[in-house]
């Protein structure tokens, strides 16, 4: 562990060595990045969306590049919770970082069941994905309907002793409503944003580029939207927020802290640079040092809004 403690933060009962997490679906199970990261400097690895039963994901092309972003329609391909616990968790729980399991289901009680199964040693927290735009039953309805979101969160909370992070969808009219619903239902933290829904078209074949027609937009292109929503959520709830969406460098991460994030997660940027999380960690340490801030917590929510602002 780096001796510099300035980046240490707590999310509920979870202690993060640094507030820089790897976002679900972009970092595999962590191991894939072993050649590029020092896990002790990573706040945690959020593993790929895990479901009760194994899932094959979507057919056809699954990723497309867009200006400063990308679309994905992986569709929650994963080997299922049991396989994960038996074959993957035993290996990765030895990594000197937190393992956060991102879970998806198609009904509140299924979420509960998943939470119970995953309430095992080695899992440090659950991230409830109520917002996967890429599968029909991937929870997007839970992510946009505050009542459904409430019951999903409640079901998960009831079935686990782990900290529960609820991951919000940006595809809503008012993020404050879903943020509040998750908090009211007992969520220990929020994470946002998941991907925006988008699509791309091949003008030669006139077919969608993605096999699943639509996909989730991520990457630098969405940063302004993510930052806005994190700030909205911060003004609405008291629980800690994990901010993400388009972070590619320490300066981007700093913006999320200022907007109200307690920690951040990096997704798409890992594809451009597999060591980017480490650079962000170093960059944040430098940022704090240069401004005489003792800890990253001092940055959270310090946006100085001029009086005339909203």
């Amino acid at each position, binding site marked *: 562990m780096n001796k510099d403690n300035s980046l240490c933060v707590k999310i509920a009962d979870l202690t993060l060595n640094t507030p820089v997490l790897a976002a679900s*679906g*972009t*970092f*595999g199970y962590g191991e*894939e*990045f072993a*050649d*590029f990261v020092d896990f002790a400097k990573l706040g945690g690895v959020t593993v*790929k969306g895990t479901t009760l039963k194994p899932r*094959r*994901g979507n057919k056809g*092309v*699954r*990723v*497309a*590049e*867009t200006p*400063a*972003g*990308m679309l*994905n329609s*992986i569709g929650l*391909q994963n080997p299922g919770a049991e396989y994960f616990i038996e074959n993957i968790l035993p290996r990765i729980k030895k990594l000197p970082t937190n393992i956060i399991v991102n879970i998806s289901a198609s009904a509140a009680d299924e979420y509960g069941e998943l939470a119970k199964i995953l309430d095992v040693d080695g899992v440090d927290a659950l991230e409830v994905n109520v917002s996967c735009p890429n599968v029909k039953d991937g929870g997007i309805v839970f992510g946009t309907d505050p009542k459904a979101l409430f019951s999903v969160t409640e079901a998960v909370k009831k079935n686990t002793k782990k900290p529960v992070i609820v991951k919000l969808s940006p595809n809503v009219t008012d993020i404050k409503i879903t943020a509040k619903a998750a908090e009211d239902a007992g969520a220990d933290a929020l994470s946002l944003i998941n991907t925006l829904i988008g699509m791309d078209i091949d003008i030669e074949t006139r077919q969608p580029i993605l096999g699943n027609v639509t996909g989730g937009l991520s*990457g*630098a292109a969405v940063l302004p939207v993510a930052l806005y929503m994190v700030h909205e959520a911060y003004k609405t709830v008291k629980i800690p927020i994990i901010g993400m969406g388009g972070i590619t460098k320490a300066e981007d991460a700093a913006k999320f802290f200022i907007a109200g994030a307690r920690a951040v997660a990096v997704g*798409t940027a*890992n*594809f*451009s*640079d*597999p*060591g980017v999380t480490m650079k962000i960690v170093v960059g944040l340490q430098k940022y704090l040092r240069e401004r005489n801030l003792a800890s990253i917590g001092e940055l959270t929510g310090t946006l100085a809004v001029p009086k005339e602002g909203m």
Partner: protein
Amino acid sequence: MPKSVTEAEVISQRQLAQNVYMLTVCAPKIAYEAEPGMFVMLRIADGAMLLRRPLGIADVDLGKGTISIIYRQIGGGTKKLTALTSGDCVNTLGPLGSSFTLKAVRPLIIGGGLGLAPLLYYAKCVEQSDVLMGGRTASEMFWTSLFKPYVKNLYVTTDDGTMGEQGFAIDMLPQILTKNSYDCLIACGPPTMMQLAAKIAKDNDLPCQVSLERRMACGLGACLSCSVDMADGRQKKVCQDGPVFWAQEVWA
């Protein structure tokens, strides 16, 4: 196989044919670990494009610590690659993926188009290979002089008959298989060509390896962009489990 990412200095870039280039960069760590069949992912124009581009390793010079790739300018990313000149740096991630078997004693290599790029390095690594290559027209067959130093027999087809036999490479395959005796077929090229090659190999009781392509985001086995269904229903990742697979794994 430790992977690494480096700002690789461009040693040379030279045009081989219309829209086809060979790029040689200095990346000793990658050169040391690279096996034939593996690929690298290049960051385009210092991150101007979000996704890296996967490109097969076409040559390695251990002494100089360089690797070469051969690519076709096909879209925006490869277009930007053509601007690189010696002294520039290109962010390179690799080596990635699986490799062709080096256990074969007398393999027949079959390739088409840019599929020949990783096969070139393979040809260099094995003692006694033959190569069967197909292309559209003579001017695209700069490949012959690239392969000549490394292979015993070189069979060429072109669609228009301007070099070698007229027709598709795959059409010549059965005939070549009767002429010599091989212990393995190594294929890389258009999907239909590979699938037909695999079928012919099977009919001839020859083991066969193929190299698949899928759109990729991470290249590290993390994102599942490159999922491919195996014959038995399992799902594999082209970037990590492949790109090289035994043909019978892929097609029953």
